[in-house]
């Protein structure tokens, strides 16, 4: 019988710490009478910063704990820091908005924290069961967050839709896991590689089980063909929550996807290779083609997310350290860019509500040139035009894929990126080229000044602009992280 020791608890100290903080925040929220959200938000922010420092002071050699349920190494630590950074950026933006829109709902920051803990569990999971736990914790918190504007029909619809579809995806993962367990008698990742050697690889249970797990993960990443929920959820939830859904969970799930398929299934790449090629190809093209017709900015960003997930996935085909580094760098720049776009949107209000349609941005370059310039830079970066960060990471992903011998997928990718350039340029067109007189009814944009959003906007823009000048520092960090998997 194995008893839990302090040495085993220590590696997951950051998670423990955050769970304790979450419970404390609940108490604060209940007993504090006024300005609940604000206090809870501050607590959240500081606890996240402490969590990052807890993670970074911990030695980064490989440790498993809780009966091999959780795995801690340089890679998981790096991904956790990434996720928490994304959440910190989102929380920074949320202060003024939450005070205004949800003054009494102190649960929002707490749910964000629970979701973050879920993401950290996903990143660390070393077992199909702990993976399932993490996914559930992460998603359950998100369902509520999406549906929090209760009197808004779109938000309710989005919450319900996400809940039903996501529950289906989670159950697919669960079913796939049980099939695998039935076949090989273990749920631990590290035993998979061994077990696969002993069974015939065309075993239908293995194929079906893996496909189901893969489908569930692909759903969470909003990749084609399980992308349908994305636009509705993005549109329905409040902008802060959209920026959360678009950034942190994607990194968490993707880090697991990379670890599972590149590290554990490395020798069996022929089982998943074709699936990923198809998914990546479809996602890049479908995202690019459908985004053209969107009028709503958030729907537009949803389709853009779909295609960016597809681009990031191209790197997985190389199945080596370079591939992981390229995908991680893609995710970092993507996360920064998307959060920056949301920060720009949150900086603006049109007649007291958030900016929804692309048309409302007309006149932006005249009224608020700084926001317009930032948004333009971010759009060029999303389109992958040099010298902005988006170009370098996209090139990096294509580079490793080509080096691994996949030439057609990058060619498809660049064709899709030309199509995609069209709609990113359209946003710049609306901001800069359209004359005000053409649309006088949309001239009521006002600046919604808040320290957090402005700061996030400036930071993200600086990162995107200067990423190309000195990528070396990030590369070294990525190398250390990716090395842990090999």
């Amino acid at each position, binding site marked *: 019988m194995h008893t839990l020791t302090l040495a085993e608890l220590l590696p997951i100290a950051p998670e423990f710490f955050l769970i304790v903080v979450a419970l404390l925040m609940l108490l604060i929220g209940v007993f504090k009478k006024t300005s609940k959200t604000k206090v809870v938000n501050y607590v959240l922010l500081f606890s996240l910063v402490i969590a990052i420092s807890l993670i970074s002071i911990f030695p980064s050699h490989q440790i498993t704990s809780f009966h091999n349920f959780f795995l801690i190494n340089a890679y998981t630590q790096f991904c956790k820091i990434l996720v928490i950074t994304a959440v910190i950026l989102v929380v920074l933006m949320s202060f003024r908005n939450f005070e205004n829109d949800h003054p009494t709902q102190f649960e929002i920051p707490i749910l964000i924290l629970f979701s973050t803990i879920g993401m950290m569990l996903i990143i660390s999971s070393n077992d199909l069961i702990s993976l399932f736990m993490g996914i559930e914790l992460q998603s359950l918190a998100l369902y509520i967050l999406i549906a929090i504007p209760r009197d808004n029909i779109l938000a309710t619809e989005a919450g319900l839709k996400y809940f039903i579809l996501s529950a289906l995806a989670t159950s697919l993962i669960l079913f796939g896991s049980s099939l695998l367990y039935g076949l090989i008698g273990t749920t631990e990742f590290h035993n998979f590689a061994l077990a696969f050697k002993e069974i015939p690889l065309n075993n239908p249970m293995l194929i079906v089980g893996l496909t189901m797990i893969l489908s569930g993960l692909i759903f969470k990443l909003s990749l084609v063909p399980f992308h349908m929920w994305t636009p509705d959820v993005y549109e329905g939830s409040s902008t802060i929550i959209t920026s959360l859904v678009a950034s942190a969970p994607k990194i968490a799930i993707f880090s697991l996807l990379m670890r599972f398929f590149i590290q554990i299934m490395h020798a069996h790449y022929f089982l998943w290779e074709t699936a990923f090629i198809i998914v990546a190809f479809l996602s890049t093209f479908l995202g690019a083609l459908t985004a053209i017709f969107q009028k709503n900015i958030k729907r537009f960003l949803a389709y853009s997310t779909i295609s960016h997930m597809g681009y990031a996935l191209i790197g997985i085909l190389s199945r080596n350290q370079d591939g992981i580094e390229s995908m991680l760098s893609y995710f970092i720049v993507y996360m920064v860019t998307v959060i920056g776009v949301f920060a720009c949107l949150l900086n603006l209000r049109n007649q007291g509500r958030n900016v929804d349609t692309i048309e409302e941005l007309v006149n932006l370059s005249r009224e608020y040139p700084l926001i317009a310039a930032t948004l333009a830079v971010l759009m060029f970066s999303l389109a992958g035009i040099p010298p902005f960060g988006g170009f370098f990471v996209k090139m990096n992903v294509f*580079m490793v894929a080509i080096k691994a011998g996949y030439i057609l997928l990058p060619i498809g990718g660049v064709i899709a990126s030309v199509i995609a350039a069209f709609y990113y340029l359209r946003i710049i067109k609306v901001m800069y*080229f359209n004359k005000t007189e053409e649309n006088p009814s949309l001239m009521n944009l006002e600046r919604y000044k808040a320290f957090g959003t402005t700061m996030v906007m400036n930071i993200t823009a600086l990162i995107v602009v200067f990423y190309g000048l000195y990528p070396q520092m990030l590369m070294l960090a990525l190398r250390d992280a990716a090395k842990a998997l090999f």
Partner: protein
Amino acid sequence: MESLPLLTLIIILPSLGAFAILLIKNDPQSVAQNARGVALLTSIATFLLSLVLLNYFKISCSDFQFLEKYSWVPKFSLNYYVGIDGISLPFILLTTFLVPITILASWNVILEKVKEYMIAFLVLETLIIGSFCALDLVLFYIFFEAVLIPMYLIIGIWGGKDRVHAAFKFFLFTLAGSVFMLIAILVIYGEVGTTDIVEVSRHTFVIPKQYWLWAAFFISFAIKVPMWPVHTWLPNAHVEAPTAGSVILAAILLKMGGYGFLRFSLPLFPEASQFFAPYIFSLSIIAVVYASLVALAQEDMKKLVAYSSIAHMGFVTFGIFTFTEYGIKGALFQMISHGIISAGMFLCVGILYNHTHSREIIRYSGVRSKMPYFAFIFMIYILASIGLPGTSGFVGELLVLLASFEKKGWMTFMIGLGIILSAAYALWFYKRVMLGRVMNKNLEKLKDITLVEKLYLFPIGVVIIFLGIYPKPLFTVSKTAIEKIISPFYPTLKTEGQL
């Protein structure tokens, strides 16, 4: 001179000027005035620096000079690697010479968002000079592609009525071409392990692969040049861009395509270049004849000049792919001379447009009687565009014609037809606009060119005539570089003489 990073200084100086303009804050009127002043001073300083570059340039040296190499991303052995040879130097001088002129030309014309306009032009200058200096494929691609951003904004914000369509067409056409070049660059990196062009040029690619790589580079450069049939973005972009934008487009951006052929396609893929040369000849001949015929039919002045650009660039592509000393010399000369001539033509059209706000040829007549100075300088440009001996237009076309003789007689005939047609449309254009009596009331109040306009129109005329009478400096500068480019082709050229 060894210690000073002169090239980087030239590349970065316009951007520093742009940054200074960004910081200007005051009331709108003085911001505009200061922005103009800073932009002009920066671009003149850049021009002077490039003259220093010319001064220290070693003509006899066949390698790249002013080399600067800094490790950038060691993981991909990516370097910030710049340097110039006799081919890039003329283009750098052309750029630094024309940018102050374009800024002067927009002095009293661009009245809104002056600050942003000047920033866009200076950033554009940085990127253009950078792409002429880059000796690393990825670095070149970054500069080459980033040029799209300021140009897109210049066309889209300060352009004419149909500017949005033109800006999108320009951006997407060029992007669609260059992404294939990116893939080719990555394939090269995968095979050679570096993107340093000096090292890549030592590598020989196997034949079917070399064809594909060549084609990928070709698409990108052909769209930029532009060659028939991917030229359709050019008339739109030219017509809608503000005058200074058209000048930069025609004079410099198009040359990046020709420069790309010389710098990358020929040295890196010699066999593929030879294999595809006959197709290039056909496309060039079509471009020369077809674009000239289309130019004859144009009613819009800017469109006419745009189509004449396509025709003149046809000479360039033809000359490059003859792989002879005459051909490449002629192509290089033609690029520089066309850069100057087309700049002058667009500036003239811009001046007329500023007075009357119309570009339709039919609305003009007898301008000469109102603007004698203007008529004189415009005549020089027109004659140079035709290729009259004594102007710079003549030298390049003559050399390309000579080179085409070595290929096949009927090709010379077809290209020569293009020269005759160019005389037809250019002279007819001049006749309709400048000669005759003033028929339109709007033209009564035309005034002759101002001092500022003289200041930028006359230098162009002087350069045209100087290069026409004494073309030697350009040939001396580029001699060794051209010899280096054609050296791989000489052993095989004898056997393919009947190509």
